Structures are given as C-alpha cells and as structure tokens.
C-alpha cells in the first residue's frame, strides 16, 4: 500500500527524523491560510500516489502568498500520470546547502534490509543508479542488530566527505529511518532529499513510504491512511471482498485461480491479440459468493465484452468450482458471453455440469483464450 508524502512525514517525525512542519490543504484558500501561518516562502506540493510530481509541475516554490494562491490553484485538480491531485502539502521552504538521498528497502537477494544512500540527492535515484552508480552507497543491515552506530557513521562520513557535523546528522537520520522502516513494516522508506541548510541543520524534506500489504493487520491505524478517492472503485470493492485484483484497460474479463496462472492467462490474451480487462486471482475457493462478487466487480466495467474463467483444479475439485460458477451466473444478470476452462481433478464431471448451460467450455488455456477473443465485438486477428 502506498501512502501520501504528508502521511510518510508523520511516520518519520514520530521516529525522530527532522521533518519540517507541514499542513495539508484541499483548496487554494486553505493553502494560503497555512502558508500565512507557517510564513513564506513555502513549497506547495501535490499529494499524489505516483512519482514524477516535480517534472509534472506538481511541486512549486512560492515566495509570496499570492504565489501560493496561484500555484495551489493550479496544482489542485491537476492530473499527474492519471492521478488527480486532491490535496497539497504546504511546508516552509528551506535554503539548501547540500542534498542527499537516504533510503531503506528489502534486498531479495540477501534477504536483508538494505540501506541505499547517495550524496547525489534531490534527483531520481534510479537515474543516479543508471548514470553514476559509483555515487551510490549500499549496505546490508543485519536485522538482529539493526543499523549499528559505527555502520551508520561510516556511511555518514562517506556521504559528507569528512564533514563530521553532517556525518553525525546523516548517521542519526539513517538509524532513525531504519527504525521507522522496520517499525512501520515498510517495503520502502526514503528521504529524498535530506538537506543541510547553510547553517548546518539537517532536514528531511521529502518522505516516501510503501507499506507491506501483508502487515496491514497489525497496524490497524493504517486503514485511516488509505486514500479512498485515489483508489479505483473496482479495486476498492475487490480489496474489501478479499480478492486480489488489478484494473486494466482491455475488454476480456479474467477470473483465474492463482496469481501466476492469472498473469499467464493475461499474457496469453495479449499473445492472441486481445487485451485483458483485469488481473484477478479468485483463490482456490468454489464458494459461489466469492465468484458472484468477482463477477459483479468485473461486469461493472463497461469495456468488458467477454468473461474468461481459467481454473486449474488441484486440491479443489473442478465439479465444485463449476457448480459455484453456474450458481453465481444464475444470480446475476449477465449479458456477455462466459468461457470456462476447468482442468484437473474431476474435470469430466465439471464438463458435464457445464453442458447444460450457456457457458462456453474449453479444454486448454489456449483454446479458452481463443474462444473468448472470438466472442468479442472487435475480434483480433488470430495468430
């Protein structure tokens, strides 16, 4: 789960990172009020769940309240990579003597938390990684001990090129960032840039945290951080139904058991020239309720012209699943054709059940996808 910058700033602040004050506004008038309270100059920053705000014009330096009014007005409502800006963060603008990148993430390879830091801060770190990898410091962290004092200080000294005051502040910030990262159950925590003012004060100017979806249960407070407006209505409905779902732009609605098979099914739709309308893993269940919910979420998408079930019955029996699908389709008013591929345990029994329905049976994934595409209005050229 991604959260907004202002929410990540709160988490960092609670962990002792030096985060400047900031207030969130949903109108230009409120932004001006906040700026007046904080004192200009301020930065006005779009709060959207995507990167590249700066390049899109979503982050502005405002020396006067008039600037705040104009810029906040321009940014609110802006579309950044498909995300509508509904909120801006107003925060005092600081003079910048130096900028650093500080980040923590999970290193799959070593199965450890990893610290990423660079003296080339304030820019896209992936860009730095591509163009000047020697400017990036990486250090694995042993979760049994956390980020130890000497480890943090060594990174601080390397970043600050011998400036002990900066090195100690960077080291302290890294240690707090690590504690925040682990404590928040984050999959990514970064400060970019961490700046020093000309007076030598270190400040965490920009904050980003991605949360581990698997850990949301033990952080009940995170539910309040979820930006329901930024979330697609169908994705929210799926999440609330406990379904793993991602909305896409095509016309073939896909219901598959298992994430890998679901991806492979989407890929096959595309392979045959079609476009999937979604990713959906219905799990191993033959529960009609879950199938009803999944179908109604997919059918709410007006683009969907055909439904494709791809079920590999393993432990789950195919006839159970078929019965669930049949019952679910009966309870909904469905006006698009449904192709069903059921393979594995009790496959023959399942096919007999489907024979009495308008559901279109298929034996293999490839056959199912081809049949589904033939049933769309805009038939693709078959390969």
């Amino acid at each position, binding site marked *: 789960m991604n959260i907004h910058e202002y929410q990540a700033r709160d988490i960092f602040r609670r962990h002792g990172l030096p985060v400047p004050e900031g207030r969130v506004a949903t109108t230009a008038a409120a932004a001006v009020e906040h700026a007046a309270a904080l004192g200009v100059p301020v930065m006005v920053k779009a709060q959207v769940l*995507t990167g590249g705000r700066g390049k899109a014009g979503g982050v502005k330096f405002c020396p006067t309240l008039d600037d705040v009014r104009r810029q906040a007005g321009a940014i609110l409502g802006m579309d950044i990579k498909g995300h509508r800006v509904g909120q801006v963060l107003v925060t005092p603008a600081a003079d910048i003597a130096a900028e650093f990148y500080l980040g923590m993430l*999970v290193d*799959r*390879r070593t*199965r*450890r*938390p990893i610290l990423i830091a660079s003296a080339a801060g304030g820019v896209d770190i*992936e860009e730095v990684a591509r163009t000047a990898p020697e400017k990036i410091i990486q250090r694995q962290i*042993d*979760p*049994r001990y956390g980020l130890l004092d000497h480890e943090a200080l060594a990174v601080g000294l390397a970043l600050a090129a011998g400036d002990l005051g900066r090195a100690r502040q960077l080291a302290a910030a890294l240690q707090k960032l690590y504690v925040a990262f*682990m404590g928040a*159950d984050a*999959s990514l925590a970064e400060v970019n840039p961490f700046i020093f003012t000309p007076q030598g004060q270190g400040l965490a100017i920009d904050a980003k945290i991605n949360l*581990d*979806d*698997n*850990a949301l*249960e*033990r952080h009940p407070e995170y539910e309040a951080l979820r930006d329901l407006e930024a979330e697609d209505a169908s994705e929210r409905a799926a999440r609330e139904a406990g379904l*793993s779902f*991602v909305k*896409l732009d095509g016309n073939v609605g896909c219901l*598959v*058991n*298992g*994430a*890998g*098979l*679901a*991806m*492979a099914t*989407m*890929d*096959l*739709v*595309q*392979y045959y020239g079609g476009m*999937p309308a979604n*990713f959906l*893993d219905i799990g191993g269940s033959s529960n009609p309720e879950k199938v009803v919910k999944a179908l109604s979420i997919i059918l709410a998408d007006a683009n969907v012209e055909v439904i494709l079930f791809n079920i*590999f*019955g*393993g*432990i789950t029996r195919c006839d159970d699943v078929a019965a669930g699908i049949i019952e679910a389709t009966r309870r909904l008013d469905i006006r698009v054709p449904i192709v069903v591929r059921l*393979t*594995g*345990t009790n496959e023959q029994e399942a096919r007999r059940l489907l024979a009495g329905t308008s559901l279109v049976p298929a034996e*293999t*994934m*490839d056959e199912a996808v081809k049949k589904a595409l033939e049933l769309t209005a805009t038939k693709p050229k078959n390969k």
Partner: protein
Amino acid sequence: MAIFCGAGTKVLVQGITGRDGSFHAKSMLDYGTRIVAGVTPGKGGQTFADKVPVFDTAAEAVAATGAEASVIFVPPAAAAGAVCEAADAGIKFVVCITEGVPVRDMLKVMPYLQERGVRLLGPNCPGLVVPGQTKLGIMPTSIVKPGAVGVVSRSGTLTYEVVHQLTQAGLGQSTCLGIGGDPVIGTDFLDALAAFADDAQTRALVLIGEIGGDAEERAAQFIRANLKIPVVAFIAGRTAPPGKRMGHAGAIVSGGAGTAADKEKALAAAGIPVAARPVEIVPKLREIWRDA
C-alpha cells in the same frame, strides 16, 4: 533420488488440526508421505487420522518421533514463529505454505535459520512433490508422474498447469518445487538449481518465473555457469502494469526493473529457450533434449 527430501523423510505438520492443515495432512498421508507427528498447542495427546500423534510443541514432537522436516499450515501472524519453533526443535527442512506472512517477520527469521543450518521453502508456496515418493505441501499429485524433469517455480497453479502438460506429454518429474511468490523466501532459484545440479535423477529442468526482483536474471547466469542439463524457462506477467501487486507480493515491477522482458532477455542471453506460452514448454524441451 530427489532434492531436499525423499520417501523416507519423517515429516511433522505444524497446525495439523486446523482447516487447511488437516485437509492437506490427509492428502499427504494418502500420497504416502511419512507424517510422524503433528503440532497444535493445547491439543497435545490427541491422534490425527487414527495414526499421527499430536503434540503441543515442535520440540516435544521431534523428541518423541525424530521428525526431520516440517510443513507449516498456521495463520500468517504465527507463521514466522512456527518456522523458528521448528528450527529450534532441530528440524532441518521447513516448508511454509502460509500466504500473507509480513516481510519483516521473514527478514528476522532468516538469520535464525542460517545459524541453525535450516533450509526453508516458502513462505507462500505450494511446497514440493517427489513423484512416487513423497509430498510436502499442497500440490495435486494426480498430475505428477515420476521421471527426469525437475520443475522449479515461483507460482502455484501455473506450476500445476506446466506439470500437467509434462505428464500428458509423457515427461515425468524428479521433483516439482514451488519456491513461493514473496519477496523474501528461504529457498530461491539459485538454491533450487544448485540442488537439482547435484541430483542424478534430474536430467532436464523447467524454470517458471514471474515479474519482480531479479531472481530469474541471476538464475540465468547460474544456469549458464553451473548446469549441464537442458533448461527451458517461462516468465509470467508480460502484461502486468508497473507498480501494481499481481497477487504475489513479489510480483511488482518497480521503476522499470523486474519486467518480463528483462528476464526473458537475460535467459535468452544465457542460451536458455524461453517459452512464450505455457503450451510451448514441452516442444521447446523436446527441441533441446534428445531424451524427451
């Protein structure tokens, strides 16, 4: 022969009296898995399926039965704890089926296992089947057949799909292994490939990857450097949009890294044929493996 376990392996099931645990423990028993003990706190002294003694703790179970491997079916919040319990009890091979385990928990478990010399498979994985010998996990055994092809995958049902096709084509399997879809897992492609490389029964390999991370890229390098047997690969998730989680927590493409295209390129560069569709795997294998 097989990797990680075999017909003789004495198996413990943690969470044996739960809904999933009892269902799959019965299925394993049916396939011939030598389940010697179960664990459910508070149910010590009971007997499962008329023959498997249930204990309160893994330590008691291991002490009483000499269990060597464990399969874990407990809720996500308790899964990491159960892995540590098994390791602390002296189990050397732990298969964690549980889906939804917080990544932080796994980060903390890893050094604990390393200190004790324990191999973990999973979490969020279907486990493994050694066809004709044993099953530690939840894979359907109706689709497997003893043979010479090793299968290693980050996926569940997609693996079944591929194994099914292999079996239908008459290509039996040495071991079918699901390593799990999470970002932090105990046994990765490299560990599995190294084990297959040492297994005389395995004479060809199918590797099923997916988007996210760089496990497939590293696997490609490893295969080129260390494996003498034919390998065919498949990568799921070509159509996945960046930044979204595709069911598996590990299946997120971030910042242009971990795409299917990257992985397919790395595999191709290592001389490993990549099937564009699952159905192409068997033909590709036949192209490069004269025994198939």
